[in-house]
């Protein structure tokens, strides 16, 4: 395991506990007084093999339905007209908005960031506001921005910002500044428009449920990877490997076994063989996933590029997905040694997103997909004594996609005068609930009032062209 000293103890402990809470849903000690429970806590989880989709899923919230019903539901939904797709990518820990787009043209930048300030020429200039430059690792996003496919919110958040990872992330996940809300904003959208028998409509590309997808009426699913059903053996290849794979089936197909346990084991062997054959299109060959991508995704230890590549393949194959949520790679709670950690996390994230967009374009499905990238807050404008930054307020978010209107969402408030609040944090110039409301109405085609509490009190930035 890699050890990172940068993030605060509270963050790692909170992550662990959130994970456990979302799975078990009971009896965990609070991290902080009044800590909200993650959306989806306590949802019953069942393992399920979607034969029509060819994937092994953990399904949440479908306790009344038989598993065959879910299979049929997925098949029916796949036959229906394609729906708009929203992908939510979370940068965990509070990504530093003043590095993501660094205000090298602001006179206060170097005073506030004597050690961490990036060189003016290090990253590409942000063409909509020349005070700002893209972090060098985000050059792939600058490329997409140049093509008009990225909308940037340089200082997004909400009034009275909460600097707890746990609480602030919860607000973003549930789409409201309400600690007690237990459903995710995308889960409520799916409750409004989804079907009772298609768990793929809300898909966590993770081994546990992503809280934004927590629903109450319709089932949603979690999937660690679409490619993970290959059978490989050491020291076996070529013709012999093909024969070996065929032999798995024959081990499972011995009809005359007197022993009931052996019969069951043989039946599972036979089912696994059938499934393997069905999943050949998604199979991993050695270490390289075979998703039929014509573009190259970054080669890294992280699952993130592989998950996006699998997602592109699933969308192109016509699987009935609507909302997908996953975490970006990297650690963004950069209390110390920020420069390296931030650069490496952002690099894999941005390169993977560019590859994903190119993949969608090559497969002819880019017009159906919008990706939202967000973090729970930004970081303090002034750096701390450990070459890092502490929790702040205004953060950055991106919308990416061929149909996205590539223009600023709110402006960069600057680092002088009214740009910083009393605590020295960047003020917000856009509310995340306004972005959610616009996405719901302009992209997903549902009235925001049905999903976001008090939606009419927020503006509606134009996000989709």
């Amino acid at each position, binding site marked *: *395991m890699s050890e990172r000293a940068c993030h605060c103890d509270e963050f790692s402990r909170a992550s662990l506990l959130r994970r*456990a809470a979302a799975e*078990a849903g009971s*009896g965990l000690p609070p991290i902080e007084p009044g800590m909200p429970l993650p959306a989806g806590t306590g949802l019953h989880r069942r*393992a399920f*093999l979607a034969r029509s989709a060819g994937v*092994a899923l953990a399904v949440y919230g479908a306790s009344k339905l038989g598993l065959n019903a879910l299979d049929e539901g997925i098949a029916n939904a796949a036959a229906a007209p394609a729906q708009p797709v929203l992908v939510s990518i979370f940068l965990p820990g509070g990504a530093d908005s003043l590095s993501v787009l660094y205000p090298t043209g602001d006179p206060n930048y170097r005073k506030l960031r004597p050690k961490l300030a990036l060189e003016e020429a290090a990253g590409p200039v942000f063409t909509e506001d020349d005070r700002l430059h893209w972090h060098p690792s985000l050059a792939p996003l600058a490329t997409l921005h140049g093509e008009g496919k990225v909308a940037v919110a340089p200082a997004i958040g909400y009034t009275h910002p909460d600097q707890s990872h746990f609480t602030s992330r919860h607000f973003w996940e549930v789409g409201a500044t309400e600690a007690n809300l237990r459903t995710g904003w995308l889960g409520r959208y799916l409750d409004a428009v989804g079907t009772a028998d298609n768990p793929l409509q809300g898909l966590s590309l993770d081994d546990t449920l992503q809280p934004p997808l927590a629903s109450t009426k319709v089932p949603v699913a979690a999937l660690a990877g679409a490619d*993970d*059903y290959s*059978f*490989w*053996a*050491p*020291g*076996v*290849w*070529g*013709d*012999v*490997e093909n*024969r*070996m794979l*065929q*032999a*798995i089936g*024959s*081990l*499972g197909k*011995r009809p*005359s*076994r007197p*022993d*009931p*346990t*052996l019969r*069951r*084991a*043989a039946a*599972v*062997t036979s*089912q*696994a063989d059938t*499934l393997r054959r069905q999943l050949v299109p998604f199979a991993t060959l050695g270490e390289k996933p075979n998703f039929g991508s014509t573009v190259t995704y970054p080669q890294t230890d992280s699952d993130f590029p592989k998950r996006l590549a699998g997602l592109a393949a699933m969308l192109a194959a016509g699987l009935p997905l609507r909302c997908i949520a996953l975490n970006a790679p990297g650690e963004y709670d950069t209390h110390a040694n920020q420069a390296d950690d931030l650069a490496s996390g952002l690099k894999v994230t941005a390169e993977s997103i560019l590859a994903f967009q190119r993949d969608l374009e090559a497969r002819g499905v880019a017009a159906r997909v919008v990706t939202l990238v967000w973090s729970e807050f930004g970081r303090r404008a002034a750096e701390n004594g450990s070459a890092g930054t502490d929790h702040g307020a205004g953060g950055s978010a991106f919308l990416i996609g061929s149909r996205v209107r590539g223009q600023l969402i709110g402006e960069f408030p600057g680092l002088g005068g009214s740009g910083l609040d009393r605590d020295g944090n960047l003020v917000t110039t856009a509310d995340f609930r306004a972005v959610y409301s616009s996405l719901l109405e302009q992209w997903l085609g549902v009235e925001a009032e049905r999903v976001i509490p008090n939606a009419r009190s927020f503006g509606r930035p134009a996000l989709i062209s």
Partner: protein
Amino acid sequence: MRAPDIPWVSELPTYRGPFTREQAERLLWRAGFGPRKGEAEKLAKLGVRRAVTSLTRPDTTRLVGPAPKDEKGRRLAPLDAWGHDGLWWLDRMVRTRAPLVERMALVWHDWFATSNDGVGSPRLMLRQNRLFRERGLGSFRRLLLEITCDPAMLLWLSGSDNNRWSPNENYARELMELFTLGHGHGYTEEDVRQQARALTGFRNDWSRSSGPIRFRYDPKYHDGGVKRVFGKRGRFTWRDSCRLCLEHPAHPAFFVTKLWGYFVPVEPARPTRRALEHLYVSSGYNVRSVVEAILRHPALYLGPRMVKPPAVLIAGTLRALGRGIDTTAWTWLSGLCGQQLFYPPNVAGWDDDRWLDTATFRARWQTAGYALRPFNLSTKNQRPRNPDALVASAHRFVGRPTLTPGTDAALKRFAKAALSDANASWKRDQYPSLIENALRQLIVSSPDYQTC
């Protein structure tokens, strides 16, 4: 306590059929982690009675074989590194010469299923594990008393949150439902509440650096009032609480049936169960006596097979191959197979009926590959170009597990077909090695090998 009114009690049958390598192999998988090379043959020579006693009364608990390490050759850090706790135990399963002692620890880990997910302290989990190892074949009364005040258990089931001012029913309920009586067997919701009162008095402190510390019984935290449990009245304490469960008429049947289920997959017939109950009670709640009777019983040798739990499968495969713990991969592989040691899914433990599905089948396939990888035959090896000889060689290499005729035939058909693909001289040279590697993989992934 059950009145000794059963006339035919002490006659528990002993298996009298042939005790060959095959029966010895099953016994070693059920009561341990499978045979090392040659071990089944040796055990078969003892006959069933002495074979069982050699397991229940081992003369050494010494570990044999190389010390465990991670892939970089570093020592395990079970208290600090994630997943090393399970590896530490897996190593004991692989190297032990007293396999039933480790297997009983696994039984108790499932019976009193405590997860580090709720405890958050590998130190306390390993302490509980030591209890299971040291007390696992002794008196169940003593084990029950010790697990009731075990720190990991006190944290896991809120035992040290249970005090006279705010009783917590968590432990009281599971004590009866899962540990001693069984759901709906002779206790009421009021008994749960009253037992919770009896169990008050444990507490611990919290230290910023070490977490939970100073577990102790504090009479000031105990509810000293009169309780009414199972219709009896008294100023019961936690010791009484355990005693009342043990003396409950439903306990012996629950105990022997549950214990039997770890070794034999079909329920004991009624006379067998009653004889086991009598043995259990008359021996003073002695676990070893009951285990010996179960391991000698004809049902173990004549009844259907059982699916090997993942930890047993992994440890057993490494034993058969003569390989120690030299990678941390077993942590995630075991998890994918559905069993991460020290992390049972809930207080009811693992569900032994659900080890095999398409996802865990693939995990078992991967596990086989990881276990076999260091022993890969390279294509430079000269191997026989005869399908039957290749099957025999691969079979011998993985410890000669008993295979059904159907599996044996499928393996030979595969070898024959794969050899016939060799239509060039380099293929005729190289394919036999590949085929033997594939045969090892297929044997260790076969339905026969998943069960015992």
